[in-house]
């Protein structure tokens, strides 16, 4: 049976997933070796059970991200923090040095074109957490892939190691923030 792999998109810009697609022709090789069971680029509604590896892009920024992070952990054997936002909070967390009310006022009131209103519990969008957090402050993380975004080569290295049943230990050349 092929390894069951998932990718998830929390509080990030999708740049890490773009870099994943930069695997280019290697994607064809990868498609033969794995089952992609959940991903923003696959039409699957619910995060499945019994997943071998999940790559998680983005910081944990809102209530939905937080809930998703716990589901991912529960259903995945190996969780990879995928990129700088998942690892450090990065750009997603730049709002953290301002009080949440100030951030929301700026986004939803000051800059609103029409219907200025801060989303509350009666609005069906996720509530922002007080601060955006790196993934490992919410759930246990097994491997960290750095970079904004991680390069395709770095992603390929990590995936190749995992396919051989190894937990990737990134060589120093692949430890690169930003």
């Amino acid at each position, binding site marked *: 049976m092929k390894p069951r792999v998932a990718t998830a998109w929390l509080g990030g810009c999708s740049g890490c997933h773009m870099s994943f697609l930069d695997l280019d022709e290697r994607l064809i090789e990868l498609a033969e070796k794995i089952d992609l069971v959940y991903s923003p680029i696959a039409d699957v509604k619910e995060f499945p059970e019994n997943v071998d590896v999940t790559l998680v892009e983005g910081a944990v920024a809102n209530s939905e991200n937080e809930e998703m992070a716990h589901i991912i952990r529960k259903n995945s054997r190996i969780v990879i923090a995928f990129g700088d936002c998942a690892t450090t909070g990065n750009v997603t967390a730049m709002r*953290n040095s301002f009080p949440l009310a100030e951030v929301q006022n700026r986004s939803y009131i000051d800059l609103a074109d029409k219907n200025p209103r801060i989303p509350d519990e009666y609005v069906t969008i996720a509530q922002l957490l007080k601060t955006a957090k790196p993934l490992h402050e919410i759930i246990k993380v097994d491997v960290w892939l750095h970079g904004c975004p991680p390069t395709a080569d770095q992603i390929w290295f990590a995936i190749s190691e995992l396919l051989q049943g190894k937990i990737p230990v990134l060589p120093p050349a692949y430890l690169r923030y930003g």
Partner: protein
Amino acid sequence: MSVITFIIDDEHYSAKEGDTILQVTRDNKIHIPTLCYLDGLSTFGACRLCVVEIEGSPKLFPACTTKPTEGMIVRTKTDRLKRYRRMIVELLASEGNHQCAVCVVNGHCELQNLAYEVGLDHVRFPYLFPHKSLDATHKEFVMDRNRCVLCTRCVRVCHEVEGAHVWDIAGRGINCEIIADLNQPWGTSESCTSCGKCVRVCPTGALFEKGASIGEMQKERGFIKFIVNARNKSEWVHTAHEEE
């Protein structure tokens, strides 16, 4: 001048009287990570990255301010030191707002390089995300306190080399920050000569030239040694700088 013989990592070395452990290691191509230390400036011993073990003492000693004594046994690369050095970089990362992806010195940053050197794959302490100010009132330069690691190179170079003493440290503990003159906007400082030495020695993107975009700001940290050497010895020669 008397010569001191001592041991670093099981090898014998000799030092001139007055040399620090760090000077001896640099002269002999033994690498010890540093951050606040800069050739040409006074030693400060603040960052603690250069800590070493000395046999007979349970304490750790900063190599940049500790002088060897005859027969001293120094260790620079033990597991305990590696653990502490990583922890120091983690604490620096958690106490500031360091987003490499949007930083002017991305790729040319000493803090970033230290993180790679100590194998910092993630920070185990909770990030504090402190609210820090940015001062863009100077006509040429910007001070972004979010990226400052309080190494005080700017304070020392301004006082010791330029002789203007614009910069100082205000506050205590976690609230420490670098201030201009009497804690006023940099652009209103009457003592600043706009020489740019502070900008060039800053290890991070805390001090940078206006107009520099992400990853564009290259620092030049070796020139202070050149100036100080020229001033003290009247020798206008560039010497290879180990860390650059």
